[in-house]
């Protein structure tokens, strides 16, 4: 004889109670253990939904203006200077309008624009192709701020990310960079032969409450802030000016904007 409806419901009810209660009991010891130590953020750390930058090219007039910014970055991050341009490592650099915004140049373009150097760096895309292609997750999008980070510990030097990046923002260490760093900053590590590197929006400085080195040196030419906060400095600059982005048609959603009124 099969069980009655009443018996079946009793067994089902008891099983449900045992299941829910059991999982609650099991979850207790794990929680207790986790309280013993913690990894914390610096109390002054700067945080954002999505970090972004506006490059105000009206403020870059002389070669000196560009040099100051590039040197601030490259000195702090121990970026080597190679004589051979094929070995070049660049975090922030300049190029012409034609190369920075291909497809938007034409042969009748204003001369001033044609010869103006454009300050270029990693665009910290919202939809980064370099992250998608990295086989080891050495390059990844940080959980807070959406910075495209590079973990050289995990980089195997396959250079997929360099092929994936449409902006040429990544450089490969073909040689040991140490002898080519003029003055080593002991507060930041070097890189080793066979890894890829790039701009990290000074993640290590943001973690300590400092703004990026290039922004600090730019004298107002670079505006940095939270794209997710409508009252931030970048958003204010974006509201007030016409801005363009590099190769936005590719759908990578770059976070670096250019004001090109000159």
């Amino acid at each position: 004889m099969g069980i009655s409806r009443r018996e079946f419901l009793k067994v089902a009810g008891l099983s449900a109670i045992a299941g829910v209660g059991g999982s609650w009991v099991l979850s207790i010891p794990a929680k207790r253990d986790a309280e013993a130590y913690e990894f914390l953020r610096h109390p002054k750390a700067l945080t954002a939904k999505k970090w972004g930058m506006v490059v105000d090219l009206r403020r870059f007039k002389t070669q000196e203006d560009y040099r100051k910014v590039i040197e601030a970055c490259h000195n702090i991050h121990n970026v080597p200077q190679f004589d051979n341009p094929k070995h070049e490592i660049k975090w922030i650099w300049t190029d012409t309008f034609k190369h920075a915004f291909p497809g938007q140049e034409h042969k009748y373009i204003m001369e001033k624009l044609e010869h103006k150097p454009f300050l270029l760096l990693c665009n910290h895309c919202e939809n980064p192709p370099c992250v998608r292609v990295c086989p080891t997750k050495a390059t990844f999008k940080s959980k807070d701020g959406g910075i495209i980070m590079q973990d050289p510990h995990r980089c195997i030097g396959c250079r997929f990310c360099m092929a994936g990046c449409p902006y040429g923002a990544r450089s490969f260490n073909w040689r040991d960079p140490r002898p080519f760093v003029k003055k080593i900053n002991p507060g930041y590590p070097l890189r080793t032969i066979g890894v890829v590197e790039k701009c990290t929006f000074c993640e290590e400085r943001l973690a300590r409450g400092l703004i990026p080195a290039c922004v600090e040196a730019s004298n107002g030419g670079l505006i940095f802030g939270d794209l997710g906060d409508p009252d931030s400095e970048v958003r204010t600059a974006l509201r007030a000016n016409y801005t363009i982005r590099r190769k936005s048609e590719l759908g990578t959603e770059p976070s670096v904007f250019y004001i090109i009124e000159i």
Partner: protein
Amino acid sequence: MYNAGKIIAGLIVFLLIVTYPFINRVVTKPVVDAEKVERLKIKKPKEFTIAEHMTILDEWRDSAVRDGRRIYMGSDEKKYPISLQRNCLLCHPKERLCDRCHNYVGVKPYCWNCHIEAKE
């Protein structure tokens, strides 16, 4: 149900025995694993450091690089910045902290390809 009393009493006893480890954990103070607590303090016996430093460095590295959490607080409530160049090596020179053992056992970790020994 025949013998309901005996069966129910038996079931209760059975449940108590099966769930004893969990009940014990909830009712009494949690048993703290002495080895784990030792691991969480920064001042550790030499033997412990020798055996476990790779795991610790690995955890700290992942926290700093991946999660942006660059301060470690152990069970002694003291906070330490997670950084070789800004923390460990400022007090413990690399020669004493790393090289003495590594040279002796003939291992060559590639930390120093990138990380810099503090000179100041």
